């Protein structure tokens, strides 16, 4: 604890410290010599290609991938062409840029993803140098070819190659170059020795950095900062010029007194720091050169690789890994020797308190007097975040917690969240996970991305634990991890379908937001159709199952699932698919087993494809429906003979369906149609298409009694119907004599009250009266009432001694019928007495 400042090195006003991150787990026989090394920022994985220039097929170079702590992830012999450069994308995929301009992409486990080319002309001219860079648009690749031309791809996921203009006077490779992303434009800054050029899409401009005197010599190395804000140039005279990458301002110029160009030069600064500095590495020396013209020098024993980070530089050697960074201001405040910052005092107070010393109180008082306790707590919490050592973190957090006790209304949130986040960070920094993230990097990267990275590296249990611990909603947290886990699980070739399905089901259960169909799709992609079907069974929403089942050509199953889902659109999708995929016979057979789909398709056919409808019924031997179909069709037909032939087909089908009634009715209809046509031709009666009743009506209206009579007999029209019809017809035509004759032709099957009523309807009371006498005794009263003969009605009612009849008459009497009312009432009373 006391020695926390032991590894601090002052540079100007700032301090730099080198913290050990890991003892590397790897065991590299030859160290990092003769290796192409690429280490991804944000504690990403490390890729190593040994002896990249070896080309003999007998001994291929080995490509190895390690975690940041040196745990081997994969290794395999490099069988493709010679590699110029390795690099990592923002999503931790490895880019291998080959001499011929093709770029191969591998995932972190060494499985090949895809490849692309940097242009045809490169195959000829070869890639001399390549750089992988990151920008807001994603990961980009820049190359310079043997013909001294630059080609850029700003985003490899949306590949657009840009060939930059020629650089005047450049032969071979430039002495050094970098890629800059500025003002939403990607440019190349290059030096041909004395000259410095900016190369953009359209032009090549010579530039001169401010304050860069001609005496400085020619530029042999350059470097841009992580944020593309700063630029460092190293000249052959050993000077380091630093300034803004816009080349507007100069920051400093330091003489390193070194004549050889450094092997690597990397910016080392933290966001918002006022003191940017550059780290230079030679074979045995590491030098930090700052704005203040001062330097720090570290001797080095081993071959190293520098990795620029957001807030420092990681130094990877064959044995260990260190983080070189500017000490954060808050840590300086607290730990600087004899610091009187409130945080420092609070830490001291807590230390005394633990020793049960009363000095604790003195310190506390001092802070409180300045009313700086809040600030002190805040400082301790913040500093804890920046410390890598867990003991230091703990003592700072304890101090903060101690200080908090003396504060009222102090929000505990920053303290709590720092504690939680540190716990997560410490967990992922563990050597077997190997993500040496600083707090600043973690904040920049966000928790979401961290979980993604863990998932990507297949640390599923840890990812789930973190999600649960930080109480991330299931949708973004646990479920998402499970989804990835399951997608990965189904690819395990050594497990049986059954075992995988069970394992997936047990783990995933019904977590919200995990779609089994998604997992099944993955299984299908890996060629495991059976497994996919098993997994689909777990999918609760049957609608989700259908598209995949179709893709897997399990159309029958897809259809039944679609039907199950109750979503008719889905059923229809499958039906259309089947219609195009299958031959007609099979298609109909399939539908036959699915009544829901069948009726849906029938509905569609009724409107769109009448012929198909017929085929459908035919297939099913559904004679009844087929007959109905013909009947419907017959009504659409204008010409009589085709209409008749359709009806004949209907008759045949009805017979087949053993529906004699309908067959007979249809035959009758055919007979009627022929009859109507005959009469239409003869008399122009306009009967075609009328019902039997309407035909008879029309005939009677036309006075064609004989023909009507014929229909009556031929079609066995019930007597009642015919009598009603004739009665009405004659009355309407006011053929009263004819009517009387008709009434006497035989005993009326509809009785004679009907005659009375019909006559009254035609307002002929005189005629109506004629029939009253013929009415049956039960209806006599009604008949008399119908012709408004109250007296007559009353007589009959009294004669019948029927109370309800009397009441009926009474209800029709008006006040003027005094005597009648009296008579009725008397009769009623006498009936009631009995």
């Amino acid at each position, binding site marked *: 604890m006391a020695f926390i400042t032991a590894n601090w090195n002052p540079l100007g006003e700032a301090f730099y410290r080198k913290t050990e991150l890991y003892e590397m787990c790897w065991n590299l026989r030859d160290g990092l010599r003769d290796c192409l090394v690429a280490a991804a920022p944000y504690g990403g994985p490390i890729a190593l290609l040994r002896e990249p220039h070896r080309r003999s097929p007998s001994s291929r170079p080995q490509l190895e991938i390690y975690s940041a702590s040196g745990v081997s992830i994969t290794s395999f012999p490099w069988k493709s062409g010679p590699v110029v450069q390795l690099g990592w994308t923002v999503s931790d995929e490895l880019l291998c840029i080959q001499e011929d301009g093709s770029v191969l992409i591998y995932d972190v486990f060494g499985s090949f993803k895809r490849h692309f080319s940097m242009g045809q002309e490169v195959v000829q001219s070869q890639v001399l140098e390549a750089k992988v860079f990151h920008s807001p648009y994603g990961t980009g690749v820049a190359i310079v070819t043997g013909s001294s031309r630059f080609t850029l791809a700003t985003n490899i996921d949306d590949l657009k190659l840009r060939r930059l203009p020629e650089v005047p006077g450049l032969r071979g490779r430039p002495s050094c170059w970098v890629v800059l992303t500025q003002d939403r434009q990607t440019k190349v800054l290059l030096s041909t020795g004395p000259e410095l050029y900016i190369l953009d899409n359209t032009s090549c401009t010579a530039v001169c950095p401010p304050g860069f005197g001609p005496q400085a010599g020619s530029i042999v190395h350059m470097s841009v900062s992580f944020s593309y804000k700063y630029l460092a140039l190293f000249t052959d005279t050993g000077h380091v010029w630093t300034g803004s990458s816009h080349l507007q301002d100069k920051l400093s110029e330091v003489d390193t007194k070194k004549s050889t160009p450094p092997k690597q030069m990397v910016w080392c600064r933290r966001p918002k720091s006022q003191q940017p500095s550059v780290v230079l590495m030679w074979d045995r020396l590491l030098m930090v050169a700052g704005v203040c013209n001062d330097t720090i020098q570290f001797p080095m024993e081993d071959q190293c690789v520098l990795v620029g980070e957001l807030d420092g530089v990681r130094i990877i050697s064959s044995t260990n890994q260190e983080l070189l960074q500017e000490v954060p201001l808050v840590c300086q405040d607290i730990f600087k020797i004899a610091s009187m910052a409130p945080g420092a005092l609070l830490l001291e107070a807590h230390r005394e308190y633990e020793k049960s010393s009363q000095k604790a109180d003195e310190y506390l008082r001092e802070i409180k007097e300045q009313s700086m306790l809040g600030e002190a707590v805040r400082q301790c919490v913040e500093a804890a975040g920046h410390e890598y050592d867990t003991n230091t973190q703990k003592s700072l957090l304890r101090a903060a917690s101690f200080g908090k006790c003396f504060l009222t209304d102090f929000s505990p949130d920053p303290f709590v969240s720092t504690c939680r986040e540190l716990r997560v960070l410490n967990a992922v920094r563990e050597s077997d996970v190997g993500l040496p993230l600083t707090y600043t990097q973690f904040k920049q990267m966000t928790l979401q991305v961290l979980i993604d990275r863990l998932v990507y590296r297949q640390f599923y249990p840890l990812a789930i634990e973190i999600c649960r611990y930080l109480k991330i909603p299931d949708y973004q947290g646990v479920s998402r991890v499970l989804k990835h886990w399951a997608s990965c699980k189904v690819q395990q070739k050594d497990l049986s379908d059954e075992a995988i399905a069970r394992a997936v089901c047990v783990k995933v259960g019904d977590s919200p937001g995990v779609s089994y169909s998604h997992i099944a799709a993955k299984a299908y992609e890996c060629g495991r159709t059976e497994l996919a079907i098993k997994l689909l069974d777990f999918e*609760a*929403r049957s609608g989700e199952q259908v598209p995949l089942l179709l893709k897997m050509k399990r159309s029958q199953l897809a259809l039944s699932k679609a039907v199950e889902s*109750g*979503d*008719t*659109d*889905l059923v*229809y*999708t499958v039906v*259309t698919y089947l219609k195009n995929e299958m031959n007609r016979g099979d298609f109909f057979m399939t539908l036959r087993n699915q*009544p*829901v789909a069948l*009726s*849906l398709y*029938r*509905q*569609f056919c009724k*409107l*769109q494809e009448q012929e198909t409808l017929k085929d459908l019924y035919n297939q099913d031997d559904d004679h*009844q429906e087929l007959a*109905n179909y013909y*009947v*419907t069709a017959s*009504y*659409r037909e204008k010409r009589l003979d085709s209409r008749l032939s359709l009806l004949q087909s209907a008759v045949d089908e009805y017979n087949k369906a053993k529906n004699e*009634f*309908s067959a007979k*009715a*249809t035959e*009758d*209809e055919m007979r*009627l149609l022929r009859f109507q046509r005959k009469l239409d031709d003869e008399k122009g009666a306009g009967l075609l298409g*009328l*019902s*039997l*009743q*309407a035909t008879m009506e029309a005939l009677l209206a036309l006075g064609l009694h004989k023909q009507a009579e014929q229909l009556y007999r031929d*079609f066995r*029209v*019930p007597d*009642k*119907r015919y009598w*009603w019809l004739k009665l009405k017809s004659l009355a309407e035509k006011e053929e009263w004599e004819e009517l009387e004759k008709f009434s006497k032709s035989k005993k009326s099957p509809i009785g004679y009250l009907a005659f009375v009523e019909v006559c009254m309807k035609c307002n002929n009371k005189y005629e109506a009266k004629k029939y009253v006498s013929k009415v049956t005794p039960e209806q006599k009263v009604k008949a008399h009432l119908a012709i408004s003969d109250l007296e007559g009605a009353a007589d009959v009612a009294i004669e019948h001694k029927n109370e309800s009849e009397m009441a009926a008459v009474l209800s029709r009497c008006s006040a003027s019928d005094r005597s009648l009312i009296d008579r009725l009432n008397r009769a009623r009373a006498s009936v009631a007495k009995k």
Partner: protein
Amino acid sequence: MAHSARRDSPELPDFSLLKRLARDQLVYLLEQLPGKKDLFIEADLMSPLDRIANVSTLKEHEVDKLYKVEYKPITSTSDQLCFLIRPRIKTVKWICDVANADKATGKFRRYKIIFTPQKFYACEAVLEEQGIFGDVTTDEWAFYLLPLDDDIISLELPEFFRDNFLAGDQRWVRTAGSALHLLHSLYGPFSKVYGIGRCSKMAYESWREQVAEGEQRTRQAEIGRVFLIDRDVDFVTPLCSQVVYEGLVDDIFRIKCGCVEFGPDVTSDKSVKVMLNSQDKVFNEIRNEHFSNVFGFLSQKARNLQTAYDKRRGMDIKQMKTFVSEELKGLKQEHRLLSLHIGASESIMKKKTKQDFQELLKTEHSLLEGFEIRECISFIEEHINRQVSMIQSLRLLCLLSITENGLMPKDYRSLKAQYLQSYGVDHLLTFANLRHLGLLVEQQPGETLTVMESKVGKLVNDKTAGKLTDAFSSLARKSNFRALSRRLNLVPKSGEEYDLRVPRDMAYIFSGAYVPLSCKLIEQVLERDGWTGLEEVTKLLNGNEFAVTGSNGADSKAKNDAQRIILVMFLGGCTFSEISALRFLGREKGYKFIVVATAITNSSRLLESLLDNHV
């Protein structure tokens, strides 16, 4: 109104929100097609649209001219056409024809189709088939629910009935589920859902699925319980003549989308359109009354009105001023409405008090009771022979078949033959449809026993009859009306006087002759909080019943008002009589019912949708 509501009746939720939502979405969709455009509206969407957005609202959003879809070449000259239609293949095909005609003449226009309430894959398939898929943009106007009144919401989908129950086409089930989901998300969460019928079950499942997909919100429920019922559970009720005022008005004048057009015979002037809902104070008081009471009520009302007018006499200037400013307008309004309803009642009287109607009702009641069936059959025969009314005859035939569990083969043939003679052979198809639905069927030889059983049942005690019924209920699709009627006591004992002024049960809506089966089921299930004890009944109804407690089952016990607000969804339509019956039940038990129907139906609409003689 003679009977007063229970004082603790809960308040109904405010459904005008549904209208606002629909309007806002429509406006949004119209704005998606900026600039002047002509709007083509499907004929049966005109009235519902009118309830949501009037012409000026449409004009505000750059709708230039309005046209009704008429399946003819169009005359519009606008270069942007917007079609507001139901997802029907026929209409889509017509739009394709319009677009293709434009193409042929080299005319360039933009087309946008707005399907409501949703689009179907089949429609898009037609667009694709006709080669204009790329030329039109499509959208969905999620206008599922139209509040017709405070307690009536309609999906305005009359085709639901035929598509679902006759053609077995289940595409509307999801629509019903979505409608339920909308209500649930606005007025839920529902704590208990009951239902009966295959379609109800599917709609319920579709809704549950949508709930599972969406996010959960916890809020104070406004509607506590839901009852789903398929129309084919109870065909008897919609086939009976309606005698409650609102139902009668619907039967005679046809209420369309909550609005009725009274012709000159009512107004003795030119036709007027009248909105029939609770805003109409006069109507609100008579809508649920048996028609025999309506006249008395209206004349009383007229007298009251006269007295109110008479107050003017002997007023001084100041009183007169307040009278004019405060009361006169209301009185005038009431006066106008009163005279309309009196006119309507007179017109109804003229049509209905004739002998025929009384005999018709008598026959219906006999059928419901199962007495004097022979006489009923001859009445129906005469009805057919005299060509009284195509639909009415059909209605009586169906009623006969359902109540008698099918017709005797001899009757079946002869009645059908006579009907065909009267109205044409094309009704063979209609009969095929009716048979398919079980509305008009022939007794299978084995089933004649059931008739025997029902006759025996009247003689022997109920227990033995019950056993016999069990033995037969396993037989194929049949109505089992007689057994149901006995078990649920649907037909009150005849001979007792029934005072229609003071109804004692829901039977009053059918003059005391029959308690509607659908409403009786609802009453029973609510009373028992489920189907326990109704096993026999559900067996007779072909099962498919369910009762599910919602996720927040715990607070369903809580005695909040929402538990007494019950949403009843009729899949396949609902009649005004049923609504009246439910209102009565609500008053008796302190519930408030909200009726959601795929459409308001009655016997004519029901049967017309099953006709197949239109070519």
